[in-house]
């Protein structure tokens, strides 16, 4: 293919505040329709919006984490358009003086690194939700009206679906680590718009771009980029022109279609909102937020590799989500054995999470409990295989490992005299295997160990058992 794909993203993220951006209504997701509204967010006449302090703080935090210049002076503007999800007929947003500008985010795609420019980050209010399924009308639920958003706009710096996806994932991780957004994609807390154009390799000028809205998952983003670039190349190859337009991605059918509505001719008539005063941020305020910024994933990754000798792969996997990273760190603090913690989290625990389709946040036991389990294994109170059984019960009940071990009598048998009796009985019952072993068939020992484990319900210390078998044949 002799075309280059050029991609810029606009990412909307709902901020994790308790109340809305300009009023005290709750932002909790999933409430009954229109039970979280008030005269301000319904746009009733005579009401005045007042900016939520936390929104400013969160936007600044995100901006610092993305290496942006934080504006000492910014303001809020009205973006005017008519749509039933917007009671005021304007959205309060930021036009020419956004709160953050000119940032950089580094991504790693396969074997190369690349820096994606952040054009701006601004604060704005979310719109309501329209329900289209009823027969003759459209229903509006205004609970989401006024939920705070940041919009992150990038430079057209991405060149493939993989780069766009990696970048979007990185943004999600930054927003989670800085505790700015919970980024629950299934609840629409993170949404992507893609600006895409293609050009012949070696061309300097950008091609005509289209904008695709409504992408709510990484997979949809990746597929939409692939489909739209194919479509544009196909059109150009046939000698057609690309029309600058907004398209809507239909993830079910894997295709996009043109939104040729009148609203397309965008004329938002932005102007400063006279109801809201400018935001002035002193450098000392910005510094304060910077000093208290939670540790970012790449800082943690470096720590893990340097302090705890983790492989780059392990450090990468552990820092994908903040919940996993925090759980990992706390468990290491509890037991002092990073290598074992890595093995448990990336092995049995993540397998169980996948199986139950839950995340680290939903785990019933604490990092202290996992630390204790590793401690029990390290001091040989239980074997690794018993440890796996204990973990299963911990996942189910959230009980502490020592309690589970005690309750189920799972403590490891290390006592040689006690084990010797069992070993002798098993050897007696299995003369053929003993014979095989004597004749150098090392495999036979596995069978004998298995029998002894069966007798002891897995509690026998395997090293002691191995030694006893060799001593007694």
């Amino acid at each position, binding site marked *: 293919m002799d075309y280059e794909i050029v991609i810029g993203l606009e990412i909307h993220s709902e901020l994790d505040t308790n109340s809305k951006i300009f009023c*005290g209504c709750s932002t909790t997701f999933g409430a009954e329709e229109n039970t979280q509204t008030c005269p301000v967010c319904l746009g009733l006449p005579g009401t005045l919006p007042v900016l*939520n*302090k936390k929104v400013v703080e969160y936007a600044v935090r995100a901006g610092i984490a993305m290496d942006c210049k934080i504006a000492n002076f910014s303001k809020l503007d009205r973006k005017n358009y008519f749509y039933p999800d917007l009671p005021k007929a304007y959205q309060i947003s930021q036009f020419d003086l956004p709160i953050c500008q000119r940032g950089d985010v580094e991504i790693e795609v396969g074997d190369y690194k690349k820096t994606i420019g952040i054009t701006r980050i601004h604060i704005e209010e979310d719109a309501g939700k329209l329900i289209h399924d009823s027969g003759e*009308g459209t229903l509006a639920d205004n609970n989401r009206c006024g939920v705070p958003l940041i919009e992150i706009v990038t430079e057209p710096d991405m060149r493939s679906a993989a780069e766009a996806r990696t970048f979007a994932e990185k943004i999600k991780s930054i927003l989670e680590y800085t505790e700015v957004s919970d980024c629950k994609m299934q609840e629409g807390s993170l949404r992507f718009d893609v600006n895409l154009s293609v050009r012949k390799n070696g061309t300097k000028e950008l091609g005509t771009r289209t904008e695709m809205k409504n992408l709510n998952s990484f997979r949809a983003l990746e597929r939409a980029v692939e489909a739209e670039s194919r479509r544009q190349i196909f059109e150009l190859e046939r000698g057609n022109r690309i029309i600058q337009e907004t398209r809507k991605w239909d993830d079910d059918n894997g295709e996009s279609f043109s939104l040729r509505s009148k609203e397309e001719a965008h004329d938002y008539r932005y102007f400063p909102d006279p109801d809201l005063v400018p935001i002035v941020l002193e450098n000392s305020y910005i510094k304060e937020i910077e000093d208290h910024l939670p540790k970012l994933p790449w800082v943690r990754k470096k720590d893990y590799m340097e302090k705890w000798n983790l492989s780059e792969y392990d450090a990468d996997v552990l820092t994908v989500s903040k919940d996993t990273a925090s759980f990992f760190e706390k468990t290491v603090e509890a037991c002092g054995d990073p290598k074992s913690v890595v093995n448990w989290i990336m092995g049995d625990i993540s397998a169980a999470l996948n199986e139950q389709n839950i995340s680290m946040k939903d785990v019933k036991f604490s990092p202290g409990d996992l630390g204790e389990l590793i401690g029990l294994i390290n001091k040989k109170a239980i074997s690794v295989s018993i440890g796996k059984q204990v973990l299963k019960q911990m996942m189910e009940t959230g009980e502490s490992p020592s309690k589970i071990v005690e309750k189920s009598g799972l403590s490891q048998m290390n006592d040689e005299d006690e084990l010797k009796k069992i070993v002798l009985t098993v050897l007696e019952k299995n003369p053929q295997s003993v014979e095989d072993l004597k004749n150098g068939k090392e495999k036979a020992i596995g069978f004998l160990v298995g029998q002894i484990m069966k007798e002891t319900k897995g509690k026998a210390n395997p090293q002691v058992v191995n030694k006893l078998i060799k001593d007694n044949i």
Partner: protein
Amino acid sequence: MKLTKEDVKYVADLARLEFTNEEIDRYVHQLTDILEYEEQLNELDTSNVAPTAHVLPIHNVFREDVVTPSLDREKALMNAPEQDKGCFKVPKVIE
């Protein structure tokens, strides 16, 4: 600056207003008068004046991130010309 009929129709359309031909003619004149009056401001050199963001000399009016009670749904929907299933019902929006 002289406005045309098309300008007036365009602005009216953005504001979802419908006018008769006579009204449009009238507004072409009135709006042109207003704009020409305002053009006097262009005689001033404002190259060293920061754009006004707000007419009052205040900034940073914030509220704490605290949840306050919302309206009861019945009250929220009270002025809705039509409602259904706890929602504001509007003419069908075709996506």
